[in-house]
């Protein structure tokens, strides 16, 4: 056996204990991680740019063109009607001789406005009521019955009756779309709240004397960001399609409004003769729905911290 060298032996580590407590990993920041994750998806970046362009065009193009569906200067000039898309009229002209390019963006603006407003109302009301619903047993007994009734009546029926009763204005449509939709969002949030309400860290907060509203804002809501994002990214395209659908079956916005749905409905007889009149609004509607949905879903995924691990 060879003689043990002194260097081979273990020596007592005299370094400070606190050194072992040091965390070497870089600082974690929630929102920075969300953006890093989001921008790591090339498809999401592309879709975001696409939907950004569409939204900007919908906001600013009507301001420049000043398009109004009720102003029809070329209605008696047949040579201005049904011009196929060309360098002057990018999307061609419609049956009354107006530029379809102007009409489409005005219609997109209306559709987007309706959809965003309805989503905002649905989400804010749904999350607020859902939180309360998940925490209070008394609210639960009432709300579960409301949910049972509302979810058993077709939403289309309610929207149709409401539009007939209160008229087809933009705000009336927003009201008709969101009057019942928040109930299902609230139910969705209620289930999520019930899942995490009794987890140990919430009991710990209770022991530390944290009031319920603070538990909701500090312990529950941060956990639901990705769930709420998912719901928003589903609602925006579905309200766009819903508005299109309502207008298409003729109970949506009235003649005096330009909207994608109304245009699709109005031009569906022209599908064979002048197909661009029908297909361009359809394409724009699909483009908005798909791009916003993909952006929303990627953002929802990115806002779930479980995806932040490198």
């Amino acid at each position, binding site marked *: 056996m060879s003689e043990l060298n002194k260097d081979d032996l273990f020596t007592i580590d005299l370094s400070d204990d606190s050194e072992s*407590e040091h965390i070497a990993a870089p600082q974690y920041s929630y929102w920075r991680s969300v953006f890093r994750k989001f921008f790591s998806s090339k498809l999401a970046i592309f879709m975001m740019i696409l939907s950004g362009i569409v939204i900007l065009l919908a906001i600013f193009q009507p301001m420049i063109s000043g398009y109004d569906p009720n102003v029809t200067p070329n209605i008696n000039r047949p040579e201005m009607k049904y011009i196929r898309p060309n360098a002057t009229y990018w999307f061609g002209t419609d049956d009354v001789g107006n530029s379809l390019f102007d009409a489409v963006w005005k219609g997109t603006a209306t559709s987007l406005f309706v959809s965003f407003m309805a989503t905002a109302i649905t989400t804010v009301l749904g999350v607020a009521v859902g939180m309360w619903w998940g925490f209070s047993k008394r609210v639960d007994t009432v709300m579960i019955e409301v949910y049972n009734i509302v979810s058993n009546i077709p939403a289309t029926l309610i929207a149709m009756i409401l539009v007939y009763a209160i008229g087809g204005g933009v705000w009336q449509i927003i009201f008709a779309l969101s009057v019942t939709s928040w109930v299902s969002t609230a139910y969705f949030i209620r289930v999520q709240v019930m899942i995490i309400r009794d987890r*140990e860290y919430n*009991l*710990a907060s*209770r*022991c*530390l*004397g944290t009031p319920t509203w603070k538990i909701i804002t500090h*312990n529950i809501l941060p*956990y639901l960001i990705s769930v709420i994002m998912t719901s928003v990214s589903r609602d925006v395209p579905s309200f766009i399609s819903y508005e299109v659908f309502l207008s298409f079956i003729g109970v949506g916005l009235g003649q005096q409004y330009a909207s994608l749905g109304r245009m699709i409905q109005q031009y569906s007889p022209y599908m064979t003769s002048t197909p661009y009149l029908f297909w361009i609004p359809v394409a724009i509607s699909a483009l908005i729905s798909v791009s916003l949905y993909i952006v929303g879903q990627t953002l929802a995924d990115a806002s779930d911290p479980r995806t932040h691990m490198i």
Partner: protein
Amino acid sequence: MSVNNEKEVLLDVKHLEVTFSNSKKHVFKAVKDANFQIYKGETFALVGESGSGKTTIARAIIRLNDTSDGEILFRGKKINGKLSKEDKKWVQRNIQMIFQDPAASLNERATIDYCISEGLYNFHLYTDEADRQKKVDLALDSVGLLPEHKSRYPHEFSGGQRQRVGIARAMIMEPEFIIADEPISALDVSIRAQVLNLMNKFKEERGLTYMFIAHDLSVVRYFADRIAVIHNGRIVEVAPSNELFHFPIHPYTRSLLQAVPMPDPEIEKAKELKPYDQEKENKADETGSLQEIKPGHFIFMAENEREEYEAIVKEMEKTAK
């Protein structure tokens, strides 16, 4: 309580009953007629198998579970049932809890700074922002963590570090009484001693009283002054720690002690395990009560079982001599 008359009772649990029900027909009694006292400055352990009602008693004391019968007195004041807002705050200030699973008991979306300051915010236990920062730094230092950890999130810590955050969060409230609900059962064996030593350090420094819930008897022997054994929601034996390990009287306690593995393969192989079966042992269930059989040593029994137990005690004392 002849032996402990001179000690000050901090927490007195009298005929505590906790029931859970999902309708009027299905009522489950999780805790039945629990009686025990915890003296100031001691570590009182509650030992029993899973589902025996240990955590339910702890949660009833800290007001997370409603009680259906009985009284819990803290410093002579009733703290269960309906309380005024001030009294609730008084309970929250003076009784704190250390939770079992450090991974589940910290808010994953909040920084350590917020986790530890939560109680300070709720009770405004600081004069200004600088004072709060100082208190958090001190609390972190007292559990061996660094001020730089304040901006970190719970998932970045190891299990032992997280449990120390949980301890710091409870300690910053400067409570008098701490309920530790299996604080080390979710931890790695190598860091259990670290957490237990930390708890002992606080006990000495601040004169704390602990109620320690565990199912690991070897830990309890090291840590506790008195032990209560609970089975099926009923406390079957209460005795000082040494006494219980040397003279386990109730058959359930004996099976429980027997289940502790011996660090000797020969003894372990030769050991004949006797699982406790309430039906077979024919021990008192509804009719009995907790009675003193030796000074400071209580057994749950019916009146007619007293002689039988006294015989066991005599037998044990004889063999001990």
